């Protein structure tokens, strides 16, 4: 609305159709349309009147361009010069749609942008000859790079699509979390309520020590809430929810454009330390170790028998399959064994 009302103030001619001279004063719902062929403005009534029967020439004197009804659209900008430039930019941009990643250096990319800008200038402001040349150039370029243009177009669409999907996935995950939280809180409230009712009933119906009953009830409530928490902890399977990728966007991270040839991230760094010469069991019977299996104090400290099994087995098998001749022969280097020093007693420290 605003551009029109401003235009009214600026120039009353803007509210009059140059063809039929009807004005907004007489026709409140007047709509102006343009055709990107010549950018001559006329009201929608005129367009209907002149072009419904088929293509006709522009009614503006000395224009004479053949226009079709299909080509007419409302102008977004009040200044039709701008409208035209924007249209041209859109058209050129669809053809010259290279991305920065395709260039080796920033300088190359800048040169490319400069060329594109020159072409646009010729199309917008150039004389007839320059315009014609620019059009030719555009056409030739399109013909030459048809495949790449298509690729870039698709990439652009995909990017936009990815952003949109990411946003919706994030929103959905947040919503799910909120819902879950609310549900849990309600359940918790109901639980506590129920325990309280039970306690009151017991207080009323039995003749046990009332303090004991209240204390016990308190405990039950605590236990229940912690149990529920454990339950939710285990149920919150990270794979269960929607994939929440890269919710963190602190730095302007570079987009990974080439998903090809990148190996999967190996958390182990390509090292496999699984014993190859023996199989490690989870459990070994040994009378000497029974003391540990039953001592809660040792167990509570986290002492891990599997770790001990792994080390003992490793030490038992160390050196097997190592042939000194193989190592000494070609290199003629003295084999130096690091003797296991007497263990330092850790206890003093």
């Amino acid at each position, binding site marked *: 609305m605003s551009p029109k009302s401003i235009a009214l103030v600026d120039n009353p001619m803007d509210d009059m159709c140059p063809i039929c001279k009807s004005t907004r004063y007489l026709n409140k719902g007047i709509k102006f349309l343009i055709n990107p062929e010549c950018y001559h403005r006329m009201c929608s009534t005129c367009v209907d009147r002149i072009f419904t029967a088929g293509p006709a020439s522009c009614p503006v004197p000395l224009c004479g361009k053949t226009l079709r009804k299909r080509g007419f659209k409302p102008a977004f900008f009040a200044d039709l010069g701008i409208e035209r430039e924007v249209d041209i930019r859109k058209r050129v941009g669809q053809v010259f749609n290279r991305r920065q990643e395709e260039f080796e250096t920033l300088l190359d990319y800048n040169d490319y942008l400069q060329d594109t800008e020159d072409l646009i200038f010729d199309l917008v402001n150039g004389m007839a000859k320059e315009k014609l040349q620019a059009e030719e150039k555009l056409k030739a370029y399109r013909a030459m790079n048809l495949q790449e243009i298509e690729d870039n177009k698709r990439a652009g669409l995909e990017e936009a699509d990815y952003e949109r999907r990411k946003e919706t996935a994030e929103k959905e995950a947040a919503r799910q979390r909120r819902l879950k939280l609310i549900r849990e809180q309600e359940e918790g409230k109901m639980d506590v309520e129920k325990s309280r009712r039970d306690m009151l009933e017991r207080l009323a119906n039995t003749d046990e020590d009332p303090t004991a009953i209240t204390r016990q009830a308190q405990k039950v409530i605590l236990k229940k809430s912690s149990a529920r928490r454990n339950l939710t902890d285990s149920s*919150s399977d990270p794979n269960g929810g929607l994939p929440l*990728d890269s919710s963190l966007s602190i*730095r302007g991270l570079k987009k990974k454009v080439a998903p090809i040839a990148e190996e999967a991230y190996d958390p182990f760094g390509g090292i496999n330390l699984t014993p190859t010469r023996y199989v490690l069991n989870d459990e070994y019977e040994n009378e000497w170790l029974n003391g540990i299996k039953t001592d809660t104090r040792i167990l*509570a400290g986290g002492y891990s028998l599997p*770790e001990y099994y792994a080390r003992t087995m490793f030490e038992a098998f160390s050196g097997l399959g*190592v042939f000194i001749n193989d190592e000494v022969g070609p290199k003629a280097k*003295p084999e130096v064994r690091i003797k296991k020093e007497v263990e330092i007693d850790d206890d003093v420290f």
Partner: protein
Amino acid sequence: MAVSPLVLPGAAEKGGPTAKSKLQSAAASSNGTPNAAQSSTEVNDVAEQMNEDEKAKYVKGKKLGEGTYANVYLGHISSSPSSLVAIKKIKVQQQYTEGMAPDAIRELKFLQELSHPNIISLISVFSSKDQNINLVLEFLPMGDLEMLIKDTSGVRYGMADIKAWMGMLSRAVWFCHENFVLHRDIKPNNLLIAADGEVKLADFGLARSFSDPYRLMTSTVITIWYRPPELLFGARQYSGAVDVWSVGLVFAELVIRVPYLQGINEVDQIAKLCMGVGTPTEENWPGVSKLPDYTVPAPPSPVMGIDHYLSMFGTVGQEGVDLLMKMLIMDPRRRITARQVLEHGWWSSDPRATKNEDLPKKGGGESKVAEDLGRRPGMVDDERAGKVARKLDFGGMR
């Protein structure tokens, strides 16, 4: 361990001078068989000669810094002045006049055996004339993780970077555990950064190998903020789970950029732990009350749920939070192991961990290297926590 069936493929024939010098220094220190090339006249002389040879391979440069436990010098290999090394000269300590300081022994013993890209490598060892031990270590010029964490205005990083750092740390810890070594002092300023961005676990001054059954270990290890509940409660028999807890807290610190549980002493640390993670009780940790120093502040606070962690550490995504919670399970038997950490789904989820060369960095400078290497194991800088007595003196550098 260096000659066992489980050694990494390629470890045996690893880079010429390094592997060789390691062997030779080992021979010198452990009265190994004399070199075949040398006529074995007197064992001592051969050992001394080898030590001299080893010493001559490195040129000690300017002093980078001084700590109570060691002095750190910049050095380089005599034959190539561009190959920098850090030489850590361990001071003779008053308490241990007879023989070497235990920290030095631990450091030597384990660094000599562990060869992994994410563990600082010990290039060589020699003794200088006053019977001081000199450790020749990899020179890691880019500072440590603590610097990056603390520089909240200068360094910005995201989930992919955290994943990359945590991946390297977890690999280092896993490798230690697979080789039956407990590090027992994991914290951000023991995680040094190499020039190529690789994070390396350093400072094995508190490390030890897995204990035998019934053998007691000390419970006063690991810098207090990163100390797991079982050690705070004085457990003397524990496992690799203690390191995993520290890793979890480093993870948390990477996210919130401030240590998650900052106690001023052990009692306070337990209180912080109860508030930040939950109160250990017989219910969530059977047998905990039997531990020697089990005391918890009065009303027990419930174990924190996933909502708490999501609100605080949500930037690493749901999978990341899941991993963090598993690392911070109080009962060491249920806590995730270093191997399981690496098998977690977070590593394969999006976004992919940042490549080393793209990781944010901050020029560390030599003084920081010295500070890191010369620090006493198990201590925080006094600037960070007012309680630690030992000061670093940089009088030597100007």
